[in-house]
C-alpha cells in the first residue's frame, strides 16, 4: 500500500521585502503511512511548521513552493488549484494550531465553531454534526461533554480549549491531522491531559498525524517516528526508539544532551552568611483597588517568605498563575507589596521602586522573559547597554564605550553588535543583551523571570551555562523563576514550589525531584515529560488537585 503522504524533494522559497529569494526548505523527503504519527522536531527557524503547513498546500505570506512534489493520498497538492485545496482542508487534512486561544472566535459558542467545518463542506446535517462533536468531546476527555459546547471560549481553560480545537480538526474525519506545537503554551500538568487525549483519539480513529514540536520528551510520548530538522534540511529520520537511544546525527545528539538534566553542583561550598542578601518576609501583594482590609482586590501573593544567601541561587517554580512573576515584581518594587517586608542585605527596602534609592535599585536587577519586548526595538544595543552605565555609574564617552564592549565580551557577543538594533539579533543573542543590561549595573542580585523559557533547548542550555559562569566571576546571586523543572534544577541551590500565590514546598537541590513532600509539588514534578516513550502511559492520572 502506498504511503498516505509522500513528499519528494520539497523546496520552499521566501521572498524578503527587499526582493531577495531565500530558500527555507531545501529539498525535504518525507513519508507518512496511514495511521502513523510522525513528529517534526527542530529549533525555531528549522522549517518544521513550514513543512507541516505545506501538507495543506498552504505557505505563509511571502513564501512559495518552488519545487518538489507533495502527494496526499495519491493526489498532488502542489499542482492543485486553490479551490481544490480548500475542499481538501478540513476533510482530508486538518490543522490544530499552537494557540487555541487565538484560533477561536471569542464571540461564538464553542459547538458552533467546532461544527463549522461540516457546514462549510456540507458533510452532514447539523444535528448529526452536533452529536458527533459531543462524541468527540467525550473521546477527548473533556468535562461535561454534553454541555461544554454551549460555552464561550473564555469560559473554558487553556488545556480544554486546546482539546476543543482538536475536536474542530477531527470532526471532518480527516486522514491526516497536523498538530503545530499544541501543548507548548500549556502548563506541564495540563499538557499531560491534553497529550493523553490526543493519543487516545488518534489511536482510536486510526488517523495519521504530523506532530510539530521542539520538545523531544513530548514527541517521544506520541510519535511513531521522528524527523529531526535543522535549517530547512532533514538531519535524521528514525523510529522514536532509535532517535532517542541510538542517534546517528551530531545535531540530534546535541538536542538530546541539552535535554539531559544537569544536576547542579557547586564548585566550592560557601558558608552561608548570617545576613541573607535578599529576604522576603510575610509578603502580600496583588492587583486592583485596595479593599477595607487594606489588601488589594485580587490578592496574588499570600504570606510569602523566602531568603537568598549571598552567592547562592533560589529557584521559584510553579504553573502559570501561581504568582511567581508577581513575586519578582514585588521584590523589584514594580508591584509594591500591600504587606510584609523586603530586605536587601539586612536593610529594609521601600515597597515601591520609585521610593528606593538609586543605589538600592542598582544592587537588585531584574531580567524579563521575553527579550523581544524587554529591549527597546528603536535603540541600538550600545545605547541599551550604555544607559545603566551612565545612569548608575556616571560613565560617559570612551569609558562607557569600553565598558559596553567589556559587557558584550562577558555575555559572549561580538563587539560589532553595538550598532545593531534588537530586531536584527536572534532570540538567544537578544536574551544575552538583556542579561548584559542587568550586569551593567554591577548588581548583587539578579531576578531572572523565565529567562530561558522562550528559547530553544540548545540555546537555553548555553544561556544557563553563561549564568553559572558569570556567577563564578562576579559573585552574583540569582532568583531564578521558571515553570521548567530541569532548568531550575540545573542552576539552583534551593527550589521553592509555588501554587496559587503560596509557597507550598521548599527543597534543596539534592532533594529534587524525589524529596517533594507536598502533594502539589509531587504532581508537578511527576508531570514533567521524560525521554521515555512509555512514560505517558505509566504516569498516574491527575488526582483532583
Amino acid at each position, binding site marked *: 500500500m502506498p504511503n498516505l503522504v509522500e513528499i519528494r524533494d520539497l523546496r520552499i522559497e521566501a521572498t524578503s521585502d527587499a*526582493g531577495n529569494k531565500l530558500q527555507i526548505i531545501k529539498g525535504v523527503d518525507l513519508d507518512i503511512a496511514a495511521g502513523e504519527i510522525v513528529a517534526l522536531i527542530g529549533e525555531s527557524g528549522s522549517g518544521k511548521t513550514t513543512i507541516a503547513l505545506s501538507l495543506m498546500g498552504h505557505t505563509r505570506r511571502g513564501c512559495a513552493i518552488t519545487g518538489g512534489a507533495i502527494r496526499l493520498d495519491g493526489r498532488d497538492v502542489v499542482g492543485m488549484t486553490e479551490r481544490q485545496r480548500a475542499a481538501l482542508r478540513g476533510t482530508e487534512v486538518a490543522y490544530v494550531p499552537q494557540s487555541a486561544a487565538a484560533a477561536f472566535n471569542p464571540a461564538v459558542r464553542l459547538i458552533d465553531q467546532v461544527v463549522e467545518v461540516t457546514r462549510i463542506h456540507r458533510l452532514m446535517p447539523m444535528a448529526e454534526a452536533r452529536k458527533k462533536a459531543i462524541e468527540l468531546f467525550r473521546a477527548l476527555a473533556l468535562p461535561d461533554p454534553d454541555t461544554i459546547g454551549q460555552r464561550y471560549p473564555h469560559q473554558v481553560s487553556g488545556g480544554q480549549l486546546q482539546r476543543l480545537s482538536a475536536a474542530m480538526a477531527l470532526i471532518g474525519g480527516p486522514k491526516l491531522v497536523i498538530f503545530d506545537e499544541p501543548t507548548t503554551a500549556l502548563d506541564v500538568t495540563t499538557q499531560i491531559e491534553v497529550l493523553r487525549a490526543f493519543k487516545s483519539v488518534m489511536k482510536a480513529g486510526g488517523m495519521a498525524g504530523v506532530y510539530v514540536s521542539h520538545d523531544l520528551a513530548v514527541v517521544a510520548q506520541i510519535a511513531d517516528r521522528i524527523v529531526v530538522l535543522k535549517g530547512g534540511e532533514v538531519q535524521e529520520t528514525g523510529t522514536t526508539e532509535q532517535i532517542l537511544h541510538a542517534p546517528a546525527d551530531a545535531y540530534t545528539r546535541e538536542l538530546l544532551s541539552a535535554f539531559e538534566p544537569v544536576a547542579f553542583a557547586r564548585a566550592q561550598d560557601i558558608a552561608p552568611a548570617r545576613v541573607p542578601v535578599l529576604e522576603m518576609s510575610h509578603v502580600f501583594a496583588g492587583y486592583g483597588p485596595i479593599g477595607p482590609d487594606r489588601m488589594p482586590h485580587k490578592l496574588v501573593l499570600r504570606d510569602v517568605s523566602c531568603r537568598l544567601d549571598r552567592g547562592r541561587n533560589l529557584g521559584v517554580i510553579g504553573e502559570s498563575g501561581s504568582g511567581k512573576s508577581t513575586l519578582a515584581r514585588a521584590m523589584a518594587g514594580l508591584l509594591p507589596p500591600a504587606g510584609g517586608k523586603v530586605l536587601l542585605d539586612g536593610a529594609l527596602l521601600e515597597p515601591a521602586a*520609585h521610593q*528606593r534609592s538609586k543605589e538600592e*535599585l542598582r544592587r537588585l536587577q531584574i531580567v524579563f522573559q521575553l527579550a523581544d519586548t524587554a529591549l527597546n526595538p528603536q535603540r541600538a544595543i550600545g545605547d541599551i547597554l550604555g*544607559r545603566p552605565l551612565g545612569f548608575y555609574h556616571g560613565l560617559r564617552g570612551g569609558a562607557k564605550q569600553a565598558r559596553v564592549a567589556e559587557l558584550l565580551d562577558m555575555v559572549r557577543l561580538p563587539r560589532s553588535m553595538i550598532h545593531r538594533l534588537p530586531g536584527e539579533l536572534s532570540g538567544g543573542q537578544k536574551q544575552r543583551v538583556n542579561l548584559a543590561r542587568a550586569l551593567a549595573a554591577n548588581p548583587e542580585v539578579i531576578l531572572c523571570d523565565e529567562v530561558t523559557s522562550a528559547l530553544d533547548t540548545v540555546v537555553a542550555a548555553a544561556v544557563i551555562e553563561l549564568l553559572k559562569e558569570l556567577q563564578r566571576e562576579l559573585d552574583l546571586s540569582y532568583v531564578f523563576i521558571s515553570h521548567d523543572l530541569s532548568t531550575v534544577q540545573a542552576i539552583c541551590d534551593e527550589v521553592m514550589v509555588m501554587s496559587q500565590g503560596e509557597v507550598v514546598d521548599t527543597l534543596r537541590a539534592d532533594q529534587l525531584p524525589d524529596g517533594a513532600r507536598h502533594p502539589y509539588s509531587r504532581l508537578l514534578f511527576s508531570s514533567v515529560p521524560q525521554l521515555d516513550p512509555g512514560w505517558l502511559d505509566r504516569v498516574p492520572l491527575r488526582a483532583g488537585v
Partner: protein
Amino acid sequence: MAVSPLSMRRLGYHVTWTGILAALIVLFWAVIAIIGPSLMPHDPGEIVDFDYFGPMSKALWFGSDYLGRDMVSRILMGARYTVGISLAAVCLACASGALLGMTAAVTGGWFDTLLSRFLDALNSIPSKLFGLVMVAAVGSSIPVLILVLAVIYTPGSYRFARALAVNINTMDYVTVARARGERTPYLILHEILPNMTGPVLADIGLRFVFIVLLLSGLSFLGLGVQPPYADWGSLVRENIGGLPFGAPAVIIPSLAIASLTISVNLLIDNLPVKIRDRSA
C-alpha cells in the same frame, strides 16, 4: 502596490509612485511658500487688469480677480499664509498633544484623569464654532489664528498620542527602565517617543490637512487672514462672485487647496517603508 525598484532601494526604503508624486506636489507648494513672493510678476495688491474676473491669458496666466488684480501673484502670496499658518499650528498642536499624551500615559492617576477629561471637554466643542467665537472675540491676527487652530487640534492629537503611549508603556523595556529608577522625562523621550514616531508623523500629516481646511473655512467666512493679505481660503471667498462666470480666480485657489491637502494625505499614506532585510 506599485513599487519603485530603483532610486530608494539603495537607501533601504520601499517607495510607491503615488508617494513620490504626492511628495513632489507637497515639495512644490513648500518651495512656493518660501520663494513665491520673488517670483511674483506683479504686486499682489496692484490692479493690473481693467476687466474683473478676467480669463486666463498670456499676460495674466490665471486671469484676474474681482478687482482686476493678478491671480498668479495672489496665489503665490497666499501659499505663504496657508502653508505657513497651518504648519505652525500643526506643529504646536501635535507637539503639545504628543507631549501631554505621553506624560499622561506614563504618569497615570489623577494627572491623567483630569487632563483627559479637560481635553475631552474641549474636544466636544464643534471646532468651526469654537474658532469663529474665539476669532470674533479676540480679533483676527496671524498669531491668534495659529493659536486658535493649535488649541482646536490639540485634544485629538493628545488622544492619539496617549492611546499609543499607553500600549508602549506596558512593554517590558519601559518596566525595566522604571525598575532602574528612570524619571518621567527619560521614559517619555527615550523609551516611548522613538517607538511612536511613525504613527505620530502620520497624525501630523492628517491634522495638517484638517487645519488647512479649517483655516480656509475661517478665511472664507471672513474671520481668517484679513485683507490686504489673503490666503487661499480668502481668495476663494473674495472671488466667489466669479463662480457663475467660471472665472479662474475662484477655481485656481480651490484647486490649490485640493492639491495640497490631497497630496499631503496621499504622502502620509505612502511614506517610505524601511526594508528590514538589508542583506541586499
